[in-house]
């Protein structure tokens, strides 16, 4: 390696270097936008999704089978919580996904807003109801867990309240799509709602650490969980994620079909 003092590089050399960096960056940006353009074609996207879906469904089914066996049968019981600890394996992944899907929705909305990517709106719209259902599952399984653990179905502690608010954010997002007949207008407004709402996600995520309350802090953060329980949990998380991926791809496909139908119907009206 040649050790050149920074000062000895001439301005000219620097500018050449800068130009080459810039060209490189432009090329890379073009690569990204090419990749996005490629996925933006609904037909290509559908073909890709249809090729991936059977494998993804199989993988999800296998992960669920193995994960549920490990979680419900072979994993040890907790010395404090007994058998009820098994609720964790269906509860925690649902809560993770509820948060993850909202972020995904916001990212898709940002992509739609910045790059005018035609499928990003469909991806965000398709993610909304799925995220709401995972959020609902997290709340319900949490309540079922809370009854034996804390002796009550529901308490207004930081984590439960913040997940409840996440549910409301999902409902607000879904309500926007419901309220407007014009899909383009609804898409434009839904982007804003998703991006404004995503500010609440860090508050929801860290609520248990900021406010010391009944709900325990995230189990994985401090590696406070035994490997015998960690592996089934991670497997279940993978299964949930794959399951979401399958549902999401299918829902985006449905959205594309709905758009085509709408366009065809408008065309039919216009031609009469």
């Amino acid at each position, binding site marked *: 390696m040649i050790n050149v003092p920074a000062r000895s590089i001439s301005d000219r050399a620097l500018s050449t270097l800068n130009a080459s960096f810039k060209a490189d960056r432009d090329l890379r940006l073009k690569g990204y936008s090419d990749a996005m353009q490629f996925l933006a074609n609904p037909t290509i996207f559908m073909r890709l999704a249809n090729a991936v879906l059977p494998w993804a469904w199989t993988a999800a089914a296998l992960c669920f089978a193995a994960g549920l066996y490990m979680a419900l049968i072979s994993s040890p019981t907790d010395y404090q919580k007994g058998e009820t600890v098994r609720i964790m394996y269906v509860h925690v992944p649902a809560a993770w996904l509820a948060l993850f899907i909202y972020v995904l929705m916001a990212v898709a909305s940002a992509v739609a807003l910045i790059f005018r990517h035609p499928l990003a709106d469909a991806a965000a719209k398709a993610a909304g109801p799925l995220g709401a259902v995972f959020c609902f599952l997290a709340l319900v399984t949490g309540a079922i867990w809370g009854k034996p653990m804390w002796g009550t179905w529901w308490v207004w502690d930081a984590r439960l309240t913040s997940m409840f608010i996440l549910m*409301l954010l999902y409902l*607000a997002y879904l309500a926007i799509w419901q309220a407007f007949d014009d899909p383009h*207008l609804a898409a*434009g*407004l839904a982007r804003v*709602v998703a*991006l*404004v709402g995503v*500010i*609440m996600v860090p508050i929801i995520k860290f609520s248990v650490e900021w406010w010391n309350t009944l709900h325990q802090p995230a189990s994985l953060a401090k590696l406070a969980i035994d490997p015998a329980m960690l592996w089934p949990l991670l497997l279940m998380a993978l299964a949930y994620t794959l399951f979401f991926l399958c549902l999401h791809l299918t829902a985006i496909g449905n959205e594309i079909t709905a758009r085509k139908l709408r366009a065809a119907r408008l065309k039919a009206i216009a031609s009469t």
Partner: protein
Amino acid sequence: MTAAFVALIRRDLLLSYRGGGVGAALAFMLAFLVMIPLAIGPDQETLSRLAPGLMWLALLLAVLLTTERLFQQDWDDGSLELLAMAPLPLELLCLAKALAHWLGVSLPLAIVAGPLGILLNLPVDRLAVLLLGMVTGSLALSLIAAIAGAVTAGLRRGGLLIPLLVLPLYVPVLIFGLATTGGDLGPAGATPSLLVLAAIVLITLVLQPWAAAAALRAYFR
């Protein structure tokens, strides 16, 4: 540009004043106040304990009720489109409307809400800090309301959608607004909560022009 900004605020304040101003929202607040002892009983001690939270609720709901008018009136008579075509950027237009809403509605309500709490046996020594928190927080309330107002500008039946959009975002304001009057304040007193409240105001101040303008652009597209 500053002149146009100020003129827009003055126009909105004038329109709001001639349209009855803050009167209706204030009347709502009073009606809400009467309902409270009827709902939870007239026990002085209970009321005294709940008073700060209930007055915050009254403030939130009163501001919420005025959200619908924020952009809808201008959208209906077409003046919003004219204003959008003016040289003033759409972002600043949205900010001006939010500030006018604050000066015309939220700020007067916030100033009145604390003293009205005395009817609920609010501890008088808490009044000053409650007032300070409400005046600070009310700016964030107006800014958030202006985002929801822009999103529902052209919606005929926006009345039910607005609370769903606005209330989740009001939660942090409510939490830190109430933390200033909480019984278990640390040695630093109410200052940390007030500072967080101010931080929330600053964040919404940055976010609101962008978000509201993006929503309006969806309508003008």
